[in-house]
């Protein structure tokens, strides 16, 4: 079966999260093990990860556009909306639990940067869960 543009987007976004944001966390961990990591280094690495992800998404959008048949329906339809809504509700649960840990537990023992890094990590994990649910729903089928 031909992959829908939404599924394709989710694969690219999932790959970007794993590769670029995963790389960001690995590099930060290595730098933290060596010594102090400054604000601008952190911001620079995060910006680089975001830019690389944005580039991958943009290239995917261009590729998807070039593959479209003339007059093809490309707007989100009812299946895309149902799958997207389901994925968001699952990811919201993950985000909620993560934010409770980061906002209500970590301030009592963690450093400021640990809290910041954990916040970004929880957001990335929630996005990964959202992508995984979208992909699984397209692959295995979706029924209410």
């Amino acid at each position: 079966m031909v992959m829908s543009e939404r599924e394709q987007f989710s694969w690219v976004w999932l790959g970007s999260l794993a590769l670029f944001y995963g790389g960001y966390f690995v590099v930060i961990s290595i730098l933290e093990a060596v010594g102090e990591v400054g604000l601008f280094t952190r911001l620079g690495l995060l910006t680089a990860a975001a830019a690389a992800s944005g580039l991958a998404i943009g290239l995917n959008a261009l590729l998807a556009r070039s593959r479209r048949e003339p007059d093809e329906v490309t707007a989100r339809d009812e299946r895309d909306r149902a799958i997207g809504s389901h994925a968001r509700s699952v990811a919201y649960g993950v985000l909620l639990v993560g934010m409770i840990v980061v906002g209500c537990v970590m301030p009592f023992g963690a450093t400021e940067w640990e809290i910041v890094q954990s916040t970004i990590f929880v957001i990335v994990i929630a996005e990964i869960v959202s992508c995984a649910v979208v992909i699984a729903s397209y692959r295995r089928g979706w029924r209410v």
Partner: protein
Amino acid sequence: MSEPRLTNTVKTLRFLAGEMTQSELGKRVGVTRQTIAAIETGKYSPTLETAYKIADVFGKPIDEVFPWEL
């Protein structure tokens, strides 16, 4: 005893309707061709509105396009 399930005859009806493409059917009911493919393979159950629209395209009653197999 097996669970009753919703099946469909969309692929057959497309073939009988002059080999209508998934893309063309999708355009007429307002969904993507991937959604039509998912409906045909039983990976997605359409909303009642879309089911009626599909039946309307083929000029068939809805239970003929989406039979409920007991």
